[in-house]
């Protein structure tokens, strides 16, 4: 159960892209954090949830060929750094897109997908991935 709870407790953030906003400096953080790295103790009690639009642009990307076991069936897959419109930059996959069409600076939006599977009988984990915007 330990492994299951490790994924379950992040589901709100991974399913709906719920971020954290520091009401002291208005900076938005994703992945979520409990302390603002700029405001430190001034941020205590002021870190609140906020939902992201899921839209942003490609900062960088790579096509991964050498994959860990949980991603063997997906390779080669595209991993990217996405700068979201609300500010934070995050790591995620880009799917359903022609590799030739990928370019730094292009717009993407999030989709809800299966992210990884732990073998044939292990748990399947879901979360966000991205597609190129039309």
């Amino acid at each position: 159960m330990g492994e299951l709870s490790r994924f379950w407790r992040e589901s709100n953030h991974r399913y709906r892209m719920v971020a954290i906003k520091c009401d002291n400096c208005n900076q938005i953080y994703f992945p979520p954090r409990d302390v603002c790295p700029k405001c430190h103790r001034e941020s205590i009690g002021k870190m609140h949830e906020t939902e992201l639009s899921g839209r942003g642009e490609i900062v960088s990307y790579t096509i991964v060929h050498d994959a860990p076991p949980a991603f063997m069936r997906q390779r080669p897959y595209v991993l990217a750094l996405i700068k979201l419109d609300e500010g934070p930059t995050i790591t995620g996959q880009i799917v359903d897109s022609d590799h030739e069409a990928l370019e730094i600076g292009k717009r993407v939006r999030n989709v809800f997908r299966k992210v990884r599977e732990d073998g044939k009988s292990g748990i399947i984990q879901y979360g966000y991935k991205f597609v190129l915007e039309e």
Partner: protein
Amino acid sequence: MITLNDVYIIGAGETKFGELWERSLRELATEAGLRAIESAGIYSRDVEVLYGSNTLGGAINAQNDIGGLISDFAGLAHNNIPAISVEASTASGGAAVREAYLGIRSGEYNVAAVGGVEKLTDLYGSEVLDLTSTLLDSEWEGFFGATPAAIAALVAQKYMKDFKVDRESLAMMSVNDHMNASKNPDAHYRNVLTVEGAVSSTMVAEPLGMMDCSPASDGAAAIILASEEYVKKNKIHGIRILASAVAQDYLALHSRKSIYRFDSTVVAARNAYKKSGLKPDDISFAEIHDSYSIYGLIELEDLGFAKKGEAKSLLPDDIKLDGRIPINPSGGLKAKGNPFGATGVGQFVEAFQQLNGKAKERQVKSPANALLHSMAVSGSTSVVHILEGN
């Protein structure tokens, strides 16, 4: 007024790096440790404290507390001296040396041993990849399919676009490593590599191919540090550590201020230069943590040897053994090898030989000062040491 003690390296030893399936973790560590003690001309009973460096022993070899393991099988536990394990991702080696340095500098100890060891080949490739990816932010990088190589590829793609750098330039880092390793009997790979051979290697994470990536190696390295007082009293020749500095950055690449500047390296280097009173121009050679070719280029910039985006101007000639700033005379992470916990300690073994003029075929001509750089997987921790030659 508190006076701090000067710290000297008085002995160094290592095993061969490579795929050492027939050797165990404890055998490797003991071999390196005994070589270091022999080279220092001291006895095991003279060692007052031991720092063990390792990264993934618990996960790969089902063995935690490597400090305790080394102390036990090197015969030190019998004397009940303190033995502490140091884990700082792939910067464990540099971090363990720094702990020993602080112990002597403070006056608490006169003689300290540092032993680094790793056995990455006890599991198959994809299983190891699962575990090396735990060095990243597991929940927000690894979860989505990031591996250390994929993160390096993200850095490379953006760097190459912004500074108009091609794959051939990246390959020159690996080519330089292999050329130097061909002269190092302890190196994992001693074959000479060409730029064409490097750029045509199998893709790992585009634009990085296998020849842009350091291998998974086994190996161990050890050094002995001593105080000025001990060195003078026993008339031992030592190499002085002029500066030791460590700095941290966000664990995940996506949270950093820049994706192609390692601020942990920038800050650690700045502090090390300040403490030593030296400038990048005063460094005779450097051992840098080029786990990926792209990281080698970026580190040349962040350590002050080139301006941001201009590392390619040093390639290939300036970084050669007889160049302006020889880089990785040992063969570096790409070719000497990358047994995580031993890697950073191995840099000291190379520097000890170089600064004593005993590096034979790969000897840098009359080196004055050396800079050693050890880094956690994608730059979250950097440790920089500056050593003084003779």
